[in-house]
């Protein structure tokens, strides 16, 4: 008795051909188009000037010395440590020795910063414009259609997600409206793009947002290189040296069982 009445809606099969398929195909095509647009819009990575390069690699060398100190003999390590620490503290490797100790200028005035932001703007615009257009297009042509029924039951919370644009309270959640189908494809097409364009594509919005996440990207505050060098010098000062060659002959003999 308590069996709920199974809702049946007789849909015109043409709905499938004229709404479901077009939306899906359009979404896939825009993704592909966006991928190629992003490739066209990408500016090649800017070359670093020589002093900057020197600065970064000198720091890397210091880090290498700290991490791999075990390959050096104690006397050799001591000599290197002394030289490196002194050079780091004096700022011998700084790209801009005059700027030492001065506060960093406003990032907005830095042309390099502006370039990075331009790149991000381009990406966002390439994302937003087609999104708005397609959304408008779907709303104008296909709003208010119930186009398919999911083959599994769902809780009522999904109602707002699956039936946007269809204002009926009593409709079973399993019915999906055309606008909702648009949203589903918008977020769910990543595997399809991976299949078509290869895994390193920039077709989907989600992957774009993900890529901007780590380290706040180019917008993040750039650290003062002088501070980095000083910190590295301090790290080097406290490092405990162990020579990997110490007792190597005994280790070898033990391995051979002699």
């Amino acid at each position, binding site marked *: 008795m308590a069996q709920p009445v199974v809702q049946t809606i007789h849909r015109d099969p043409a709905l499938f051909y004229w709404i479901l398929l077009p939306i899906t195909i359009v979404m896939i095509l825009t993704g592909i188009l966006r991928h190629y647009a992003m490739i066209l819009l990408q500016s090649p990575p800017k*070359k*670093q*000037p*020589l002093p900057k*390069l*020197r600065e970064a*690699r*000198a720091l*890397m*060398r210091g880090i*290498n*010395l700290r991490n*791999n*100190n*075990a*390959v*050096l*003999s*104690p*006397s*050799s390590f*001591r000599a290197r440590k002394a030289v490196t620490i002194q050079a780091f503290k004096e700022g011998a490797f700084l790209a801009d020795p005059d700027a030492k100790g001065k506060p960093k200028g406003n990032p907005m005035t830095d042309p390099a910063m502006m370039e990075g932001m331009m790149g991000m703007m381009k990406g966002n615009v390439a994302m937003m414009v087609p999104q708005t257009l397609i959304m408008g297009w779907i709303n104008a042509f296909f709003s208010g259609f119930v186009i398919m029924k999911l083959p599994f039951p769902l809780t009522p919370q999904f109602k707002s997600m699956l039936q946007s644009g269809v204002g009926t309270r009593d409709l079973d959640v399993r019915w999906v409206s055309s606008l909702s189908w648009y949203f589903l494809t918008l977020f769910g097409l990543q595997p399809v793009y991976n299949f078509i364009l290869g895994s390193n594509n920039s077709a989907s919005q989600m992957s774009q947002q993900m890529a901007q996440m780590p380290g706040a990207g180019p917008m993040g505050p750039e650290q003062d290189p002088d501070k980095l060098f000083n910190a590295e010098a301090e790290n080097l000062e406290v490092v405990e040296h162990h*020579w*990997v*060659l*110490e007792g*190597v*002959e*005994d*280790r*070898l*003999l033990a*391995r*051979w069982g*002699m």
Partner: protein
Amino acid sequence: MSAELLYPPPQISPADSLRLSQQAPQVLKISVSSSLPYPLSLLTSSETPEIWTTIENLLLSCLRTGDDKSARVCLDRLTERFGETNEKILVLRGMYQEAFAEDNKALEKSLERYDKILEEDSTLMLVRKRRAALLKSMSRPTNAITTLVDLLDVSPTDVEAWAELSELYFAQSLYSQAIYCLEEVLLITPNAWSVHARLGEILYISSPSDSNSLKGLVESMRRFCRSIELCDDYLRGYYGLKVSTKRLLSELQTVSKSALSDPQNGDLAPPSVKTVEKLNEAATRKLAEIVRRSTAGEAGWEGFDPAEVHATRELVNKDTQTIDR
């Protein structure tokens, strides 16, 4: 066929080079660009990064074997694809010009060309390295060393440049500088057993044959030990271990007992005579085994360099003869 051209071995014998360069007609037959007009050609082209790597390696093989025409075709194709100003193309073009330079004057001209390129953009590390290599092949080692030192001042994390600089210093008998450079290499790649062994070799050669050479010899021996520890069956490591322990044994006997226990300057004390003897014994045994098995061509023992095996056989034979006497 392309697999070998795609990943050629790091050290290539003349015979292999010839074989690779003879594949030129087949490789160059493959057309990557499509005949359709621009937007459609994107869809139909069969271009992959591997093709370009293959063509680049083919170019290098052709340069080695002096196949002028094929090299030209390879270079033109790469230039057409990547543009004149691409860093790698600049280098490959320079190599082509150097390889087919007829006299010293032509080499001077390539050198000038590199200088001009570097004047415009001094961040082109590949071109700078090429310049050093050219200077080396023109037997101007001092200039090559200066070039490399300048390069390493800007880019001190460049393993290749450090190793090359070490070899240049070594050729000039500037051993302590060569050792310093190799230590830099090790700081970047701490587990490179070949570098450990090379460092051992230089330490062995550089330590003078009088009595205060002990420290260098001991370190040399330990470097060889480390290289063997990192790589079993490393022929150069065992060879070095045998040679260094042999000399160390004779040195340890002449040195007084007090010098043995003194840890010099915080460095390690030399090992006991017994340990050195054991190491010498083990190295000799291993060397004999390698010679025997690789000469017999046993499975799993065929990768050794024939020249190195030959030298090892000489060493082992010489040693057994002295024992017989």
